[in-house]
């Protein structure tokens, strides 16, 4: 029994407020995922002896961490107080947890980047006797950063979900973290494909393909679990455009990636021997272009989801309709003791 479905509001004014989060935060969502995924690829590359992939992913991880962290600080109202985040460790605050995850990730990632830079410059960093210490930490640092890598990619789903912003909250309850780790896999795989040689990026291609499939499936399931008024901002307006663009880039990038993977397997032996520069160049181009498309798809997904949430705060319909629906649904089930409005 549904009653009183008529929607009313206070002069159409917003009920909940959007956080003051702009492009910096969307960029961070993308870069955090990229860093986490790259760290996993880097660990695998180290153990499977793929130096090109290893160097590319490690440098990607530290760059993404640095730029992402800087974007986070820049978005603060008082950037000079960013260290206040480290005053507390609060499980009830995904933002607090995320700060510690990012910091933990940054330590290992930073060590690995220093090692790679030292190697690339022919051991010319002025380290003295510390060089041996630094290089001894390679495997521990790789394991440490990999330990924080997946939480770094996944926690942002809870960060957006743990808000009163209708679209984010509903998305968080319906698996936004799944979408975000998939998107992270796509971003990391794509970036590695663009930066590392084709014969070493087999794992990056597979990870990107798994991520692309995961993103398509989990995004669809997430939307199906949400109230229509909470889904609308993901499909309409500018955020909707961005997410549709993300979808197209994802499909195009995935097709290109599959082609590159088939090509790499067919020409595996030739590539190893360095024969056929035309084949190599063609494969490299396909790999780089589809990798870039995948990375762009991931970025569009993050910007789209962030902006959709902000959009969902502007019209009270996105707040009132789902809340009314769940209230009526509970009442229909005979649960009447948990309403904020009471007649007695």
């Amino acid at each position, binding site marked *: 029994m549904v009653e009183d479905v008529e929607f009313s509001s*206070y002069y159409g004014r917003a009920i*909940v*407020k959007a956080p003051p989060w702009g492009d910096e935060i969307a960029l961070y969502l993308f870069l955090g995922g990229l860093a986490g995924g790259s760290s996993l690829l880097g660990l695998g590359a180290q153990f499977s002896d793929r130096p090109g992939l290893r160097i590319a992913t490690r440098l990607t991880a530290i760059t993404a961490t640095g730029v992402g962290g800087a974007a986070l600080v820049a978005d603060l*109202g008082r950037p000079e107080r960013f260290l206040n985040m480290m005053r507390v460790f609060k499980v009830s605050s995904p933002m607090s947890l995320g700060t510690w995850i990012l910091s933990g990730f940054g330590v290992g990632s930073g060590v690995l980047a220093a090692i790679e830079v030292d190697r690339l410059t022919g051991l010319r960093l002025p380290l003295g006797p510390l060089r041996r210490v630094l290089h001894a930490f390679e495997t521990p640092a790789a394991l440490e950063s990999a330990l924080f890598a997946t939480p770094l990619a996944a926690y942002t789903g809870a960060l957006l979900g743990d808000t009163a912003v209708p679209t984010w909250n509903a998305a968080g309850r319906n698996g936004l973290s799944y979408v975000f780790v998939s998107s992270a896999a796509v971003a990391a795989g794509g970036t590695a494909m663009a930066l590392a040689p084709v014969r070493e990026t087999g794992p990056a291609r597979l990870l990107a393909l798994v991520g692309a499939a995961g993103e398509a499936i989990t995004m669809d399931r997430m939307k199906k679990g949400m109230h229509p008024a909470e889904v609308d901002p993901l499909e309409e307006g500018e955020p909707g455009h961005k997410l549709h663009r993300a979808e197209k880039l994802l499909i195009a990038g995935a097709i290109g990636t599959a082609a590159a993977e088939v090509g790499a397997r067919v020409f595996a032996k030739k590539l190893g021997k360095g024969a056929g520069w035309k084949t190599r160049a063609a494969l490299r181009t396909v790999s780089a272009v589809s990798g870039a498309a995948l990375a762009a798809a991931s970025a569009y997904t993050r910007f789209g989801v962030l902006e959709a949430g902000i959009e969902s705060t502007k019209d009270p319909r996105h707040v009132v309709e789902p809340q009314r629906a769940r209230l009526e649904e509970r009442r229909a089930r005979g649960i009447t003791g948990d309403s904020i*409005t009471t007649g007695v």
Partner: protein
Amino acid sequence: MSTTTVEDDAVADGHWHGSAHERKGFFTDTSICIGCKACEVACKEWNNNPQDGTFELLGSSYDNTGSLGANTWRHVAFIEQDSDRIEAARESGRKLVNLGMPTIRPRSNESAGAKPLGGALGAAESGSNGAGASGGGLPSTPPMGIDLLAPGALNPSDPEDIAKLDTTPPDTADFRWLMSSDVCKHCTHAGCLDVCPTGALFRTEFDTVVVQNDVCNGCGTCVAGCPFGVIERRDDGTINTPTDRDDRKAADMDVPNKNTANKCTLCYDRLVEGDTPACAQTCPTESIKFGDHDDMVDKAHTRVADLHAKGMTEARLYGANPNDGVGGTGSVFLILDEPEVYGLPPDPRVPTKDLPQMYAKAGMAALGMVAAAGLAFLGSRR
């Protein structure tokens, strides 16, 4: 005694701890609000809050403030309704009563007996109590003329005279004006407090929720965490109202605590001195009552029963149920229509309630990503 919280998971514990004081709160009885906005003015004056907007007309009856925000900690809503809306409100209120929700806190007979007219009479009484409590030691007020916010300054000279007046609003069947002074809810499970990553937001000894502006770094997470849209980052001293224009600018002014989160503190600085919050003290009809939270909830239950007895079935309470999505609010309201009519969410829920489930999903997602990466390397062995 002061913690009326229901047992909940540890993540959403709301930072409750034993405190020396009773939980303090407001009971805002909108049925006797006259829309004078004295509360808005008193709040601004006392808290030194900067200007909001550019004094333009918002086209929303007499409300030209817009909404609660970083610089507006009391906001008076004005709603004009015709007879159809009145009847609809009366009907929806009747349904609420008929739902037979359990009376959460059984009204104690003695308090009901002592104050049969919970609303106006009870309010007048608390006013005289306030005068008695603080009349003895007036703190030195700055030499700037009459300080209307000074304790006791606005108490009626003889509360008994007012108590005898019939303050029941006349029942105008064709048209009505709803007026309601909104404020921070000081939730039992406060979303803003839960998600604050710096510890700038804290629960005071009065069990209210307050921002420490010297700690806050303006990350804005609390803004998203509030289901009522109360807290906001003070960016430029203006809020966003529906009449946003490019040419609107706030006048040059001193903006304290810029770029940090700001909201009602329930006049924390006045409470520690044993005073009443500025809005409650200045309210001429005592639509805004302040006191121990338990007493406020009792008064609210008494008042809504009185109004129902007079046939005003549209009256209902908002925030008086400790089993609701935020564990009950510290600021309880009596409203005369559905919450969304006043710009209040109909079924708010502290987002932290969903957090354990979201963390579980994030954990699953993280494991899935590890598995995917592992398979990717296994699948491309050379």
